């Protein structure tokens, strides 16, 4: 039991349950399973994005370009769909994944080959990818009436009573869980975050692994490009503007350490859910949506304070000393 309580995810889950309980006192229908399913569906895109960001942060890097990647890829698939409605949706999803992969690989190559800090690289590509969206679209929007019914309808189709969007999120969560806990790649990602120097001696190619995590976050950005556009049925240059910080916020609330090496799939998912619940709950309990920003800001600060206390473990300090020496 004591060991069980040490897991941050347990505390986060408890916080979420308390949050839902509090909201239910003001709006009894909130804890209804149907409503919770809706909240999960609303948060699916953020959860998927947070997982992509998580693997990057675990290796002591950061990807600020995810939202711009999402915007660009979303525009590409929306324009393809508008121009050639005959292209099957699964093929469009593959295209979205590939476009996202290319954008992620550009980040990864700059980090790997030129050794430029990831925050600088992705700060640059953040503006470049969004600017490129303007260039390919000429500033025009792709509206709902230009998209095909399948393009919009796929994620809304229900399978076993749950929308396909939620199934995609569940699938991605399962995939990340397998990779992070059951594969050599997952172990390498954690190892690099905990101690890059030791990882090199352990035979891990640190640069290549960083390249791979940027490819992963790029593919996730691309996938979410399609999901976002087909959900909000408008593709423009302004899509997901500034959303990169929400993604990082979800990770931070989920207990993923910005210093790398600490964090889990469950944490990222719960962190995203926490933000999703707040944004869903505010309108129904009659709090102005203008409060949302300040509330999530406070949640982030609170989460960092709590996480920092959890991270002050003896083992980690010894490693830091060895690293400094």
């Amino acid at each position, binding site marked *: 039991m004591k060991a069980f309580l040490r897991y941050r995810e347990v505390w986060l889950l408890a916080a979420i349950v308390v949050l839902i309980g509090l909201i239910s006192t003001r709006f009894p229908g909130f804890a209804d399973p149907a409503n919770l399913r809706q909240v999960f569906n609303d948060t699916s895109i953020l959860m998927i994005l947070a997982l992509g960001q998580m693997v990057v942060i675990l290796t*002591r*890097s*950061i990807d*600020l370009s995810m939202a711009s990647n999402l915007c660009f890829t979303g525009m590409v698939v929306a324009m393809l769909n508008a121009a050639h409605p005959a292209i099957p949706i699964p093929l469009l999803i593959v295209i979205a994944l590939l476009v996202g992969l290319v954008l992620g690989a550009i980040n990864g190559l*700059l*980090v790997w080959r*030129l*050794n*430029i*800090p*990831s*925050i*600088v*690289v992705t*700060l*640059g*590509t*953040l*503006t*470049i990818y*969004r*600017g*490129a969206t*303007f*260039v390919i679209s000429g*500033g025009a929007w792709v509206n709902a009436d230009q998209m095909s019914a399948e393009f919009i309808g796929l994620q809304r189709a229900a399978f076993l009573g749950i929308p396909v969007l939620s199934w995609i999120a569940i699938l991605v969560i399962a995939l990340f869980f397998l990779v992070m806990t059951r594969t050599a790649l997952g172990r390498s990602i954690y190892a690099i975050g905990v101690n*890059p*120097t030791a990882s090199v001696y352990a035979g891990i190619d*640190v640069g290549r692994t960083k390249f791979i995590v940027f490819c992963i976050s790029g593919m996730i950005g691309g996938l979410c490009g399609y999901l976002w556009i087909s959900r909000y049925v408008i593709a423009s*240059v302004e899509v997901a503007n*500034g959303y990169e*910080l929400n993604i*990082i*916020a979800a990770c*931070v609330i989920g207990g993923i350490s*910005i*210093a*790398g090496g600490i964090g889990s799939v469950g944490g990222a998912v719960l962190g995203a859910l926490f933000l999703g619940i707040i944004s869903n709950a505010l309108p129904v309990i009659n709090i*102005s949506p*203008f*409060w*949302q*920003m*300040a*509330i*999530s*800001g*406070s*949640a*982030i*600060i609170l989460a*960092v*304070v709590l996480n*920092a206390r959890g991270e002050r473990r003896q083992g980690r300090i010894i490693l830091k000393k060895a690293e*400094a020496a």
Partner: protein
Amino acid sequence: MTDTPAPHHIPDRLDNPFTAAVFSWEALLVAVAVAIFAVNSFASPYFLDAWSLSDLTFNFTEKALIALAMALLIISGEIDLSVAAIIALASTMMGMAVQAGAGTPVLVAIGIVVGLGCGAFNGVLVTRLGLPSIVVTIGTMSLFRGIAFIILGDQAYKGYPASFAFFGQGYVWWVVSFELTLFLIAAVVYWFLLHRTSFGRRVFAIGNNPVAAQFSGVRVGRIKFILFCLTGLMAGIASVLITSRLGSTRPSIAQGYELEVITMVVLGGVSILGGAGSILGVVLAAFIMGLVTFGLGLLNVPGIVMSIFIGLLLIIVIALPILWRRVRRERFA
């Protein structure tokens, strides 16, 4: 930030001072600035005009003021992503004061004090509680702007007194604006602080090795706290300028400025990992960004396309010296 630093390459002999100056980062920036200036002069007949060039400075002075303090903060190994949100909060507070009938001196004081207070809040969280600044300031960024949104919602504050307009719109002499004058004075002050005082040496020492600095008797926490306060202060001053220039306050004011400020600092040759950089570089980078955006603006290039150029400039200017060093090392190895 958190990336692993590259292993140090120690040359057999040092370059002589002349070659060192020619190959310095600042020289590269001057070359880039001259090139952009020349291209602009050829591309648009409206560019080489005293008033055009004066307008150009309004593009970057507010961000550049913050970049001066941000440079010191990044050299010390920290970062502040909340500066744009501080501008929004300080501007909102000034707007509230206007509704209550405050005069110009009170407005300026409120803007500066709110900025300083926000900076101190960041500083306490980072230095007292030992939290990573990148995460803390992502949080306070939402918090500060969030408070502005709670107060203002979708409304706007207007009705600033006429005398308040001087800070963002006034000219000190001929085409020299108050904003530009303030920026140049601030640049000299920060240059002196960083490159000519023991405080500046301590900032570099902390950025290179905080543990060694601590053992050498440098009060790491206190200096970082002062740097966060300075950054907040500059954001407060920038808030006065931008509010005065626009004459109104919306909670979305200065959105996205934080990334432009950081781009300016990094372009100016400040290492994002801390420990290296110069004020001259940051000032040059500010002028370069102003030249690029203004020149492209004269050619009717939309703002979002300009941002591609800024992004490319950032990556290319960082990548070039790395590639250059690699080529040189391979030749002499």
